């Protein structure tokens, strides 16, 4: 890189308010050309908002943004694109019914007299792929692609419009480890070609590995911008939270004497689950590890009644349960926290009170079916306090909360009536370090109170850190079982099917 670095983007005194709360407060920073610039912070720190302001998706209330030394005010992402700034949002913005190629050239189709010239398009696509060294089958429908491939399409789309700056908001949140690695090598190629990347992420290790400079935000304020080489994960965490947060170590008691609470026997689903059996004892946390597509989420959904099964038996406290709907599972004492709180969990337009009581509204209602608001609010308030949701206000709308707090509200719904069996699918996805520690403590406490817990996470460290016993699932079957604290490498090997699967 040359000695004189230019700053294509300069932000001065940027502020943004949402419904009375300050998302960003007087933030100034410079992003140098041809670098990867990391933006880190806890949930609600304002990192996503900042990324969206750069990409033209959100307009700041106050402050100045300069591109190449020229003040700009973007009204839409299209304005930003015209200046060579592309935003790849957390929710990917592609048209599922169009092909890869059509998506890449959406809005910039090569055309003659209003008619798209497909031959030119194909030619341009080929050039693009050979220039950047990565591609996706051009005629595949985007709706049929995996998350990682869709991301590639977004990146190709950005470079096809000659973007010099690409803002990526949590690009790896739905990617596997291998896919993340691939994305990172793409980003390095982009940087070598002079593209500037703004990388918004809560994965600190990724940011440190990839970024040239890192900006830390806390509660909407700038903490510092520093060279990534001078930072460590601990320093970033300290910056994000104002104090060091220690990873907690949990005791892992023996459960061989405790009564069996939850038994799954021979659960099958054609092509997805292959005769799965296991059991969980009272107070036990069983971790379920497996790769994406191994059937771990499908297993959770099957035993929670969310998806149909072809056969198998489920027992809670020794009683046979016929589970053919989520309602059946709930009545049997099984609670299920689904993987995606936005799509499958929360009611964004309803109040926190309604969200916490939703699965058991009858219990705060009179016999005639009238909800008793005072009872509901006070019960919900005490749960929100117990889980330290911020704000602990039953009348707040779920949609106005940060990710970590939303996740806690979802926990509140399932703790409203203490379940015997708690199935947690990715309980800390998209949650900041502070909330994550709180949720880990909560899971541990719930087990100590006697719940049987099945914990699923794509982060192996999380599974190993909490589980008293670890099951490895691969191709829809449990292939191996480990006692507490197994070596990470062994679990990985089993998940990949490399060795020792006969044990």
């Amino acid at each position, binding site marked *: 890189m040359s000695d004189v670095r230019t700053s294509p983007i300069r932000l001065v005194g940027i502020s943004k308010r*949402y*419904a*009375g709360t300050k998302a960003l407060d007087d933030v100034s920073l410079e992003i140098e050309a041809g670098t990867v610039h990391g933006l880190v912070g806890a949930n609600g720190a304002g990192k996503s908002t900042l990324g969206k302001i750069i990409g033209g998706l959100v307009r700041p209330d106050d402050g100045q943004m300069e591109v190449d030394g020229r003040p700009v005010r973007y009204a839409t992402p299209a304005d930003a694109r015209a200046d060579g700034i592309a935003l790849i949002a957390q929710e990917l913005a592609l048209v599922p019914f169009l092909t890869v190629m059509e998506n890449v050239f959406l809005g910039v189709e090569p055309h003659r007299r209003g008619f798209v010239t497909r031959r030119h398009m194909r030619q341009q696509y080929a050039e693009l792929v050979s220039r950047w060294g990565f591609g996706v089958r051009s005629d595949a429908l985007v709706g049929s692609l995996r998350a990682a491939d869709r991301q590639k399409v977004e990146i190709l789309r950005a470079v096809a419009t000659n973007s010099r700056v690409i803002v990526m908001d949590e690009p790896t949140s739905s990617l596997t480890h291998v896919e993340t690695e691939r994305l990172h090598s793409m980003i390095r190629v982009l940087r070598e070609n002079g593209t500037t990347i703004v990388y918004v992420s809560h994965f600190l290790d990724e940011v440190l590995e990839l970024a040239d400079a890192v900006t830390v935000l806390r509660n909407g304020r700038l903490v510092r911008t520093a060279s990534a080489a001078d930072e460590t994960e601990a320093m970033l965490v300290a910056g994000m939270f104002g104090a060091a947060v220690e990873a907690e170590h949990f005791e892992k008691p023996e459960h061989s004497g405790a009564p069996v609470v939850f038994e799954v026997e021979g659960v099958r689903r054609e092509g997805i689950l292959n005769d799965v059996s296991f059991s969980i004892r009272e107070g036990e946390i069983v971790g379920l590890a497996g790769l994406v597509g191994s059937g771990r989420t499908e297993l959770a959904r099957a035993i*929670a009644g*969310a998806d149909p099964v072809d056969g198998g038996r489920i027992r809670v406290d020794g009683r046979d349960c016929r589970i053919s*709907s*989520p*309602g059946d*599972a*709930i*009545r049997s004492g099984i609670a*299920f926290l*689904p993987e995606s709180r936005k*799509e*499958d*969990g*929360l*009611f*964004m*337009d*309803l109040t926190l009170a*309604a969200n916490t009581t*939703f*699965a058991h*509204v*009858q219990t705060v*209602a009179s*016999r005639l*079916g*009238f*909800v008793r608001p*005072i*009872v509901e*609010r*006070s019960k919900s*308030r*005490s749960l929100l306090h117990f889980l330290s949701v911020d704000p602990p*206000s039953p*009348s707040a709308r779920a949609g106005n909360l940060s990710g970590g707090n939303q996740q806690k509200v979802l926990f509140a*719904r399932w703790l409203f009536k203490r379940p015997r069996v708690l199935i947690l699918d990715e309980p800390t996805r998209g949650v900041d370090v502070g909330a994550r520690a709180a949720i880990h403590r909560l899971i541990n406490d719930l087990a100590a109170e006697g719940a049987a817990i099945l914990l699923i996470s794509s982060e192996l460290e999380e599974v190993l850190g909490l589980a008293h016993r670890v099951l490895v699932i691969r191709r829809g079957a449990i292939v191996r079982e480990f006692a507490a604290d197994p070596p990470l490498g062994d679990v990985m090997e089993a998940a990949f099917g490399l060795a020792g699967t006969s044990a």
Partner: protein
Amino acid sequence: MTSQPQQAAATEPVQAEGLARLREWRSFRVRAEHVRDYGILVVFLAMFLFLTFKSPVFLTKDNLLNLLYNNSGVGIAACAVTVVVICGNFDLSLGGIFILSALLAAWVAVHWNIWLAFPVALAAGVLMGLINGLLVTKLRVNAFLATLASGLVFFGIDKAVSGGTAIYPGTSSGGSVHEGNIWTFLGQNKLGGSGGVQYPVIIFAVVAIVLQIVLARTVFGRHVYGIGGNREAARLSGLKVDRIIIITFVIAGFAAGLAGLLEYSAQGQGSPGDPTSQALALAAIAGVALGGTSIFGGVGSVWRTVIGVLMLGLITNGFNLLGVPDFYQDIVRGGLIVVAVAIGSMVERR
């Protein structure tokens, strides 16, 4: 329920609850959401005041009762379809249910027995609502298309049964004067004699109040909002989603049947299709949208729909009183709906 110990335990959280609410109120400020949520009330009151000062006739009991009477049919249908819309669906078949229920009632009055006419109208409405609900849940037909199609069928049956001519319960079809009077009683009479309130107005008020309470206060209402806001989350919370959706369509069918009965009771006939019924579903949904209920479901309420319907009625009433040409009315109505919906989505976008 045993009340004694429970009450004692309940007082403490109640007090804490009151304090907490007070704290929330202190930090109250007018925000964009409030414009969206209560703007419609302000505009309604402004129009009301404007007409009061502009026209000497507007603020009279007769005029206001007429305004309510003229909008009671649409109002009843609109309040009920609000429940369907909040649950994330749509009902375009209201007009068909409205006219076919009334026609079947008139047919029963003439051919069987006048007293059977009323339960038949309501049962027909319920049955048609049930068909809509089953189409949407069991056959998984998109509600918009399912009810567009079922509405067409209902209109068709109406024409087939009537043979294209109206059915008049009473003397003209060989019945007695007494029978004719029974048929027109609800539509043409007032509670408390000639100076009283028309029965359709009273029924509209009852329907609105009951549905408002059902949605805002009951477990069923909570489930309706949940399904409309996030259907999958509602299912995973253990709800019988299909059953609740079917009930919402049945409520709409019942209300449309009731509205039809009142309308044609007022007209003294059962009709083979007329302009009111053709426009009913869209008029009702216009009222729902103007009130600020999201047509994507999950957000809204019945009182909003009442305001929306009355606002549309106020335009007709006010324009007539002020002698403004008719054709401006629809332009103003259309404009208002666009503004209301646009404010709603602008606040969402922010």
